């Protein structure tokens, strides 16, 4: 509409300009007012936990898979070629753990990255906590002193807790509680699954006990210090070396082995995986039988935790003479 002429028309035009200014001013005020009200709300509301469980090793993932009801996703994200105990996840992978409904840690210092990662405490379950009065130590720390803090040592705890089947069962019971909390509606299904897992682990425990008893307290060696809980639970006399299955023994290793054999005349050596043929031969030359006892920290190519452990028990029983070899 064309503006009217004359004083009144001028006033009308000025008036419309003022009205427009007022509208703009009001809109600005409204926008300012909205800026706070429109502030984004939290994406992470407290009640909507995702139905996912992240674990730091395969045994925990296996227990969780056995117990988890339908709809609960169990994730063990460590790459297969890495020892999960020493895996260093990226911030992105830590972010995936942070978003999980429950985070299952082993405890006993397992998975070193959890010492410096930021995880939501409310969703973290340290499965080995409270399962033993005292954790076993690795015993290879240096006590040191610097500054005014006094002596201290960074002695690590032995962490392959699940090789003691009773401890494994205790860890599974913690997972049972965590799943019941995550998906309360499926509590009964989780309970039934837990009863089945309890039967399997108890059978395995009984078998390992009978194998250990039949081994008649014979000294054994271990390629790595990972069998502390196995030895402690089943009364095995195991001394550990630091040998890698995929590396040949060096003269220094042989020297250390011979030195150890003088005070610990073992006829069996437990290995996490099949050693190289030349290593096996060097051991055979010293009258030592190689027994693969896989801790199963990573998922096996075939089978599952239970079949791996049953295989371990079978091989140990065969080597100790507790059972006839197949």
């Amino acid at each position: 509409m064309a503006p009217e002429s004359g004083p009144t028309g001028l006033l009308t035009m000025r008036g419309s300009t003022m009205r427009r200014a007022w509208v703009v001013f009001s809109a600005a005020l409204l926008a300012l007012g909205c800026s706070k009200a429109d502030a984004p709300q939290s994406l992470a509301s407290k009640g909507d936990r995702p139905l996912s469980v992240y674990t730091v090793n395969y045994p925990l993932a296996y227990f969780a898979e056995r117990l988890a009801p339908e709809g609960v996703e169990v994730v063990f994200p460590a790459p297969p070629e890495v020892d999960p105990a020493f895996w260093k996840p990226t911030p992105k992978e830590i972010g995936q753990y942070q978003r999980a409904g429950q985070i299952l840690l082993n405890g006993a210092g397992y998975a070193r990255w959890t010492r410096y990662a930021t995880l939501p405490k409310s969703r973290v379950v340290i499965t080995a906590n409270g399962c033993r009065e005292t954790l076993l130590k690795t015993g290879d720390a240096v006590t040191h002193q610097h500054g005014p803090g006094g002596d201290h040592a960074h002695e690590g705890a032995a962490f392959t807790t699940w090789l003691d089947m009773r401890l494994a069962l205790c860890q599974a019971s913690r997972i049972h509680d965590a799943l019941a909390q995550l998906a309360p509606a499926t509590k009964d299904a989780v309970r039934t699954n837990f009863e089945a897992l309890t039967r399997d682990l108890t059978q395995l425990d009984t078998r390992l006990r009978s194998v250990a008893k039949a081994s008649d307290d014979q000294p054994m060696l271990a390629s790595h210090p990972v069998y502390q809980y196995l030895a402690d639970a089943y009364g095995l006399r195991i001394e550990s070396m630091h040998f890698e299955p995929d590396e040949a023994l060096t003269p220094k290793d042989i020297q250390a082995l011979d030195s150890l054999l003088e005070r610990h005349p073992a006829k069996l050596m437990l290995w996490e995986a099949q050693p190289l043929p030349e290593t096996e031969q060097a051991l055979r030359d010293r009258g030592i039988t190689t027994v693969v006892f896989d801790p199963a920290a990573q998922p096996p190519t075939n089978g599952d935790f239970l079949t791996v452990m049953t295989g371990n028990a079978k091989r140990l029983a065969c080597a100790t003479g507790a059972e006839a070899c197949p």
Partner: protein
Amino acid sequence: MKDSLYLAWRYLHHHRAKTLLLVLSLTVFLGLPLVMHAMSAVIQQSLLARAEGTPLLLGKKGSSLDLVVEALYFQPKGIEALTAADADEVDATGLALAIPMRTGLLAQQFPLVGTSLDYFAFRGLETADGRALAKLGECVIGADVAATLGLNPGDSILTSPSTLFDLAGVYPLRLHVVGTLQPSYGPDDRAVFVDVRTAWVAEGLGHGHQDLATASGDVLLKRKGGTATANAKLVQYNEITDENADSFHFHGDPASHPLSAVIVVPADDKAGVLLRGRFVNDSARQLLRPAQVVEGLNAQIFRFERVLQIIVWTVGLATALMFLLVMVLSWRLRADELRTMTRLGCSRWKAVQIMSAEVFLMVGTSVVLAAFFGFVIAHYGETWLQNLVLRGS
């Protein structure tokens, strides 16, 4: 009426300086009580909103106001510390979620707040840029910190040494900024958030250093059996990186590490009551409802506001009288002008309409300006006002 408004507008426009002075004095007169009221309301509302958003707060026995002010608004009050065991104790009841809070340190003059990831979900804080905390040595900064210091993810910020003249004290820790938070229009905007364990490292309770088992001889004073004693040459890290993160450790029992307070989020009302019952006779700790404490503070602010109001209204009355005087004198000075208008055929009533329109335009403009300033202060001065009140509380 439109004609009267037009003539009034032309008159005011012609006498711009006088009009401006009158409008400004009227704006101050009208704006002061408005701004004061808006300030008071905003402070009370925002303080209360944050306090009401915090169901329960666990701290050492002492001033409940200091505890709330330090734990919720991050203003250092030097409150006595709890231990991590106290937070674990709350967690162990299964009745509530315990969110640890470690305050008191600064990072480039902004409060450093050590907490857990649960805090961000609890407060509804969202990342604007970057990501959440993932490791020790990382920090997420509030919107104001990012804007003031010009920091973005990928930059770093130093913690301030706790004791300036303590040469043997704790060195500043370089924190990696991994995320900035979206504005929340509260104290979180002015905070630097870290994992509570990072706060302990910054305090000197934890540290990382060269591995003494493999360290060269020049950093060792002596090595005897399984014990090594290092000299001052031992490299201690002032930054937590992927390479040295493994070496960081804490001395002593982790359960004894200090917490300024613990935000307690009960599962439900019943759990809250049960928890309060457990702490009611505790001689060393207090579990309080922050809203109750802030209501007390608000009552004090309200009393102070009433005293101020009396002063402001007295000044306002004087301003109004001055305005009236100016207008009366102005009309007297304009006697000739009014006479000319009458001779030109303008009625007496029209002259009154024009004069009234002048007053209306001036008062109207002053009201709008006063409302605008009141609104801006109430809306954008919230954090500033909170700090102003809480520093002195």
